[in-house]
């Protein structure tokens, strides 16, 4: 948890804890208003270097707004933000050279081929990756000579990612990178993200796919109505790790279930009641989805 433990004094505007100078991203009390509505309403968060952090939340929760403040696209109305040690409001070319940005909307239509687009993009950066290698990495080598408009939705999105990483970013923003992917494309994309992690890239990912967050992220933050309601490793989100396990089995032709805090002991005891295998034995924890739906449904 990175939320500040101490409750701020009423009316306090100063962040309760200082910005973390070592973090890739450090946010204190971020506020962004649209009209009289706070789209982002006091977010505190630190994302460490090398980490993959997933920001999870329903549509309109403030994910994209938060990310676009970090990327320097939107001006904030309150709070302090540092991205790679720099306030995004003053981020210059050098700062942008360290970032890779995959926008939710993706890149526009172009008459250039995939390889030409990547070469042009690479020309803006000090130490770009080899465009052909990047195409290989995202699995678009066969499409090197194709124009963007001829690509499928999933291929286009991979091209967006290729454009985001060709500059060899140390910090990569991915805003809903797999929306519209089929399951196969999503799995390919996940392995791409893992290979980027192995190259040491810090990533901030927004998604509304829980399996994606669980699969990729070191930590997950759940944002709803502009507030970060929890930050945790995926397995511990919402007290999931401590939640009672549900053991189920079939006995005398009837499906039985039991909730227990000690499933191992329970199953060992259960095993003594059957001569061999316990019929249809299953042990389940609340899924991330169960936990998540409870969190975002909470009107508090």
């Amino acid at each position, binding site marked *: 948890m990175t939320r500040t433990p101490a409750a701020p004094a009423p009316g306090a505007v100063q962040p309760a804890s200082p910005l973390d100078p070592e973090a890739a991203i450090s946010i204190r009390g971020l506020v962004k208003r649209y009209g009289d509505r706070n789209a982002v309403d006091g977010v505190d968060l630190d994302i460490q270097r090398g980490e993959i952090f997933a920001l999870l939340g329903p549509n309109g929760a403030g994910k994209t707004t938060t990310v676009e403040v970090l990327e320097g696209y939107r001006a904030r109305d309150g709070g302090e933000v540092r991205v790679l040690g720099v306030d995004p409001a003053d981020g210059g070319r050098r700062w942008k050279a360290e970032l890779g940005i995959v926008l939710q909307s993706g890149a526009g239509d172009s008459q250039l081929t995939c390889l030409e687009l990547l070469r042009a993009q690479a020309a803006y950066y000090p*130490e770009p990756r080899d465009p052909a290698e990047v195409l290989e990495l995202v699995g678009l080598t066969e499409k090197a000579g194709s124009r963007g408009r001829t690509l499928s939705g999933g291929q286009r999105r991979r091209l967006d990612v290729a454009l985001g990483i060709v500059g060899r970013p140390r910090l990569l923003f991915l805003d809903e990178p797999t929306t519209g992917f089929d399951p196969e494309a999503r799995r390919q994309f996940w392995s791409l993200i893992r290979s980027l992690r192995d190259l040491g890239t810090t990533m901030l990912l927004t998604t509304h796919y829980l399996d994606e967050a669980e699969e990729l992220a070191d930590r997950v933050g759940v944002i709803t109505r502009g507030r970060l309601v929890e930050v945790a490793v995926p397995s511990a989100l919402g007290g999931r790790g401590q939640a009672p396990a549900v053991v189920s089995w079939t006995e005398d032709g009837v499906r039985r279930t039991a909730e227990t805090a000690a499933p191992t002991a329970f199953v060992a005891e259960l095993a003594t009641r059957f001569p061999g295998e316990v019929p249809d034995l299953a042990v389940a924890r609340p899924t991330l989805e169960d936990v998540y739906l409870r969190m975002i449904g909470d009107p508090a």
Partner: protein
Amino acid sequence: MTMIEERSLPSIGSVCRTRAGVELKEFFRQRESVVFTLMFPVILLLVFGAVLDYELGSGVSFTQYFMAGVIAAGILGASLQNMAIGIATERSDGTLKGLAGTPMPKSAYFVGKVVQVLVVTVAIVVILLVIGVVFYGVDLPSGTEWLTFAWVAALGSAASTLLGIAVSSLARNGRSASATVTPVALVLQFISGVFFQFSEVPTWLQTVAAVFPLKWMAQGLRSVFLPDALAAQEPAGSWELGRVALVLGIWCVVGLVLCVRTFRWQDRVDR
């Protein structure tokens, strides 16, 4: 303390070259823009040259007159219409937002656009001149007339490019930019003496036309293509080259101010 490494960024010159290459490919590979911007004036010249085959007096054919107008209209298409529609499209489809997130120097984007306008303009002018000479026996300018040709075209093109960039910010997307700018350009062409003699335009419309750059571009180019005897048919009885330079120069300044004040790298955030 920042974590930004001191890596040397690519030079602005090299990024400008990259952008120029991108802009030229984007233009010449898109059938719509090539047909609309390049072929439209050519078709106009071919059709008008064939249909309106009469003499204006002093042994000057209408085509000789139309040459100045169609070149001015071609320059307007390559700059004002091309920029307004092209940039509005790039803004609404996220291309500009994507570029703004890279370390590309913002000036390089505009240099790329200027190179595109320049190349397309030169292509249009050359094609129109060749067709004029080969099919309609148009007399080419000579001597210092080329100099006048060059500065009128350059100043007119600069004013129209800046205006086009400014106008792009008014449109919601490329299609709405096209729907706004195309009729305006067409009306301007009719009242600025492109399709027929400016002296035939009603006086009040002449006054309207005189506010905008196209009329002055066409008038400046007429001074190049027509004998000085025909200057008497101009509203002022002369080519008014000083005023041509003044009005186009003012439009450059106005266009630049509008660009600087209105240019946006992303769609409005109005949520």
